[in-house]
Each structure stands twice: as C-alpha cells, then as structure tokens.
C-alpha cells in the first residue's frame, strides 16, 4: 500500500511538472529571447484611423528592443510592399527604407512580393539591408535564385537560432504566370526536415520557421515536421493571440496592415535550447495615441513619400480626345476602354467589368494618374477563365435584368429586348463578329469581384482554367500609356430596345 501511494505521488509530481506541450517551470540556465514580428504590412505606413503607421510601429519596436537589446530578434513574414498607393506607386521603396532603418534580422518572401515582377523584386532585395529568405523557392533548374537565402543563423545571449524562410506554394497559382514562370515553389514539408537537421548540425538550439503560408498550413507543417520550435507566420492575416501550439511548435502571426506588432517572449533553456515558457499576451496594437512610442525619423521617411505622391498623382499617363463617361444603365465609352484594356492585357476573347466598379468620369485632355485611381479605386485583379457560350449568355441575361448596373463589355456585342421577361431578353450575341455558339468555349476575362460571384453574377463561379492576372487599374494605365490619345465611343456593343 505504502509503495502504491509513493508511486502515485511520484507519478502525480511528474504529471504536474510537465504540461501537454512539454514546458516545465523554471530553470537555472534559462535565457529570455524576444521575437518581434510583423507580416502582411501591404504598404500601410501612413497613420490612419485604424493604425498608427510605420512611425508608431518603429517606436514600439525600439521600445521593446531597448528593453532587451541583446536578446531581441526582428522578423517580417512577407507581403510587406504591395497594397497602398504610397507604396505601390514607388514600387515598395518607402517600405524598404523604413525596414532598413529598423534593421530587420530576416524577411521571408510573400506571394505579393511577385506582383510587380521579378526585376522589381530583385531591385527591392538589392536595396534592402536585411536578408531575404525562401528555402522552398528555386529556379526551374532547381538552382537557387539570386539574393534569396534559405535560412540564416542568428545568436542571442549565447543561443544560436536558425530562421528558415518558407513561402506559400500557392504563389505559383495566384500570381500572374509571367511573374513566376522561372520559378518552382516546393512544398514546405519537402524541404524543412533537412533544413532542420542541417541547422541543428550547425549548432542551432532554436529553430524558427518564418512562414508565409497561412495559419492553417502552419499548423499542418508543425504537425508534419519534427523539431520546429516556433513558426512566425503570415498570409492568412490572422491575429493569433495567444499563440497557438501544435505539437511542440509555438505558432504566432500578427494580423495584417500594420495593426499589430507581434512580441513573442520565449524562456529558453540555455543549454538545450528547449522552450520552457512563452508569453500569451503577444500582440501589441500599433496606435497613434498620446503617449504611444513614436520614431520621428521614420515619420520623416513616411512624410517624404506622402508628399512625393502628390507629384506622382499629377503625372500624365495618357490622353483622351473625348470625355470618358461611366454609365450603369447602358454602354459607356469608359467601360469600353477599360474592358478593351483588360482584353489586351489578358489575351481573352471577351471582357466583362461591373459598372459599379467604375467610380468616376475622366474628362477629355491629359489623363493623370490620380484620375485613373478615381475611376478605378478598388484593388481588383484580372481573372481569366473558360466559359461556354451558354454561360456567357447566362451572364448577359443577368446583366440584362438591369437589377444592378449593367456589365460593360469588350469582344462581344448584343441586344437587350427590355420588353421581354427576365432571362429571355438577350438577342443577337456576337463574339468578334461571329454569332455566339452555346457549345463553344470562350476565354473570358473579368475582375476578382465578379469572379467571386459579386453582384450575384454566379455564373462567373463556374469557370475553368482560372488564371489570375495583374491589377486592373495598372493594366488600364499601361493601356493608356501605350495607346494614347484614345477616342473610345459608345459604338453599339450593347443595344437596349425598351
């Protein structure tokens, strides 16, 4: 009986001192390390109602760094540049300058880093002082792309840590194919096990995966790959607080758009590198409130580019000999021009754009960048797909119901007999002059809003062979730059008989 009770006591002691994730309380050799992290900034460097912007982010980073200068690491988990006019217009340069000032220890590539094409990404990495990582990104011949490392070895307070970068393999699918045609995106699980082994062999006690794969994928990676201590994530724009634990891996992500700074404090056994404990209150809001830490030097960078963008917006991108007018109830010459640009960019036979997405007229004369932004303020991308003639007609019938603004078109002409009942109003549809064949397959381009079934155009969700393209507005601007002066007309693409 005594022996039984003793065994029970020993067992109870062992269970109490070991949590489900294997963390134990206290250690004589423990070391505190702080991982500061941001992800999916998407160019949000200016102060807005929702976020303090880069100057307040910088202040917060400095505050945490100065609390433990020898024990802090600063990481970025991808998608830092594309997303706001001030960053897009300058192709990410303001963000690079700010990140250089903040001295990021490592940055992983995100899918949107490829939006402007490889030459622009290369420029960004050449301007950057931080190492860029993506262990699962290779050239077509499996060689390493320039300027991109697989991992980096850091040391803080005598603890060696490996930071391994991973980018989502979905990049190959979600980006304009011409931007990624020279690359392969390998599955993270196919590269990580060896990377972890190599890192440990080099003396790394702590393994950090800097991932741009999304939280759900990070959880799968944690379960499938042994030996990862921490995953710092991005891509799914998730505000992970408290950190998630999958197996023995701690997973964190700091939301998006400059809303949060991730502050993950780890208590590490200095000898073994095992994580003993971690902070639960790990996301700090970046706000422009009184008393919030602020970096005036970063603010100078933001202001310089914010002021410069006013000049950029005045830049002439084209010329129109006629007023470009929108019209939600019929054919519009501005709608024609936008759709022609989409077709030219994508090579599709037919283009559709929702009238509701065209928000301003452009009057004749020089067309300035600002006007392009006003006409097309939404950040839509081109989506190309195969649709049958029958599906195209179904889309036209929905447009002809005139319940929501009419779809603007290019590549086809048709008549709407408004006196007929809905779903029977469309007549005389021709594609490039040839009668629409219900059984034929047509290559159609539209925007991602419609492709998702926006405005209840559900037939767009039935497409096949989906290819994502560039930003619609940028395609329109390029078209204007090449083709100006333009003189689009209302030319009978859509004839409505009432």
């Amino acid at each position, binding site marked *: 009986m005594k022996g039984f009770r003793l065994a029970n006591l020993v067992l109870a002691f062992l269970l109490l001192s070991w949590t489900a994730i294997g963390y134990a309380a206290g250690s004589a050799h423990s070391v505190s390390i702080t991982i500061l992290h941001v992800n999916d900034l*998407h160019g949000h460097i200016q102060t807005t109602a929702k976020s303090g912007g880069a100057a307040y982010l910088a202040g917060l980073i400095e505050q945490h760094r100065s609390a433990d200068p020898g024990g802090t690491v600063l990481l970025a988990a991808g998608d830092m540049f594309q997303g706001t006019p001030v960053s897009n217009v300058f192709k990410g340069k303001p963000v690079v300058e700010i990140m250089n000032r903040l001295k990021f220890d490592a940055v992983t590539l995100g899918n949107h880093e490829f939006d402007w094409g490889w030459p622009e990404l290369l420029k960004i990495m050449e301007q950057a002082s931080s190492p860029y990582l993506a262990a699962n990104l290779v050239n077509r011949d499996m060689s390493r792309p320039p300027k991109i490392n697989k991992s980096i070895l850091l040391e803080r307070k005598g603890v060696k840590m490996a930071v391994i970068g991973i980018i989502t393999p979905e990049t190959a*699918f979600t980006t304009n194919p011409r931007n990624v045609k020279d690359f392969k995106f390998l599955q993270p699980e196919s590269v990580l096990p060896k990377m972890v082994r190599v890192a440990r062999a080099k003396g790394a006690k702590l393994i950090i995966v800097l991932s741009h794969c999304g939280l759900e994928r990070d959880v799968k990676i944690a379960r499938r790959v042994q030996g990862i201590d921490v995953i710092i994530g991005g891509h799914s724009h998730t*505000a*992970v607080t408290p950190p998630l634990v999958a197996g023995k891996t701690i997973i964190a992500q700091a939301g*998006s758009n400059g809303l949060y700074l991730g502050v993950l404090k780890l208590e590490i056994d200095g000898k073994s590198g095992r994580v003993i404990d971690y902070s639960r209150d790990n996301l700090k809001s970046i706000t422009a409130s009184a008393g919030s830490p602020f970096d005036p030097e970063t603010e100078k960078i933001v202001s310089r580019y914010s002021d410069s963008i006013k000049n950029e917006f005045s830049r002439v991108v084209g010329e129109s000999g006629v007023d470009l007018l929108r019209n939600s109830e019929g054919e519009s010459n501005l709608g024609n021009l936008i759709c022609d640009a989409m077709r030219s960019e994508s090579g599709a036979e037919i283009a559709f754009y929702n009238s509701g997405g065209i928000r301003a007229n452009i009057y004749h004369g020089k067309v300035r960048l600002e006007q392009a932004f006003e006409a097309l303020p939404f950040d839509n991308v081109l989506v190309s797909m195969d649709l049958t003639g029958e599906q195209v007609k179904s889309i036209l019938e929905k447009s002809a119901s005139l319940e929501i603004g009419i779809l603007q078109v290019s590549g086809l002409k048709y008549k709407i007999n408004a006196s007929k009942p809905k779903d029977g109003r469309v007549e005389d549809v021709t594609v490039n002059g040839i009668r629409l064949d219900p059984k034929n397959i047509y290559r159609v381009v539209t925007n991602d809003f419609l492709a998702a079934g926006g405005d209840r155009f559900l037939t767009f969700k039935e497409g096949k062979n989906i290819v994502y393209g560039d930003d619609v507005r940028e395609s329109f601007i390029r078209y204007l730059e090449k083709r100006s002066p333009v003189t689009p007309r209302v030319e009978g693409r859509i004839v409505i008989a009432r």
Partner: protein
Amino acid sequence: MPGKKKERITVYVDGRPVQLYRGMTVRHALVSFESGLCAAVEEGGISVMDENGFEVGLDGALEDGSRLALKKSG
C-alpha cells in the same frame, strides 16, 4: 502547370458552404456569401473570425475547408 488539379475550394461562412476559386481570400468569401458584408467589416460593425476564434483580415488567404464566423463588433 500548377493548380490544374484543383481550381475550386469550399469554405464555410457561419456554417454555410461557399464555393470559391483557389487563391481567393476572406473578402471573396464575403462577396459570395452576402452583399454588403465587406463594407460592414471595413466600417467595423462586423469582425471575421477563423475556426480558432482569431480575427482575420479581409485579404487573408483561405484554404479548402477554411471556416469563418461573422461576429458583431462592439
């Protein structure tokens, strides 16, 4: 060519299945689910939570099977 094997994903918004193209985001799920939801999220009236209860941004990536819940803010 990558992606040829599966072009569509099914995500769930408040338990209801929503079909999307692979590569689409939380924003597209809301556009497909109900008109006006994106505007409500942008204005702060509604938050979108993932299956772990974490808030996700409108431009967050989705996977096949992702589950989202809409929550009235404030």
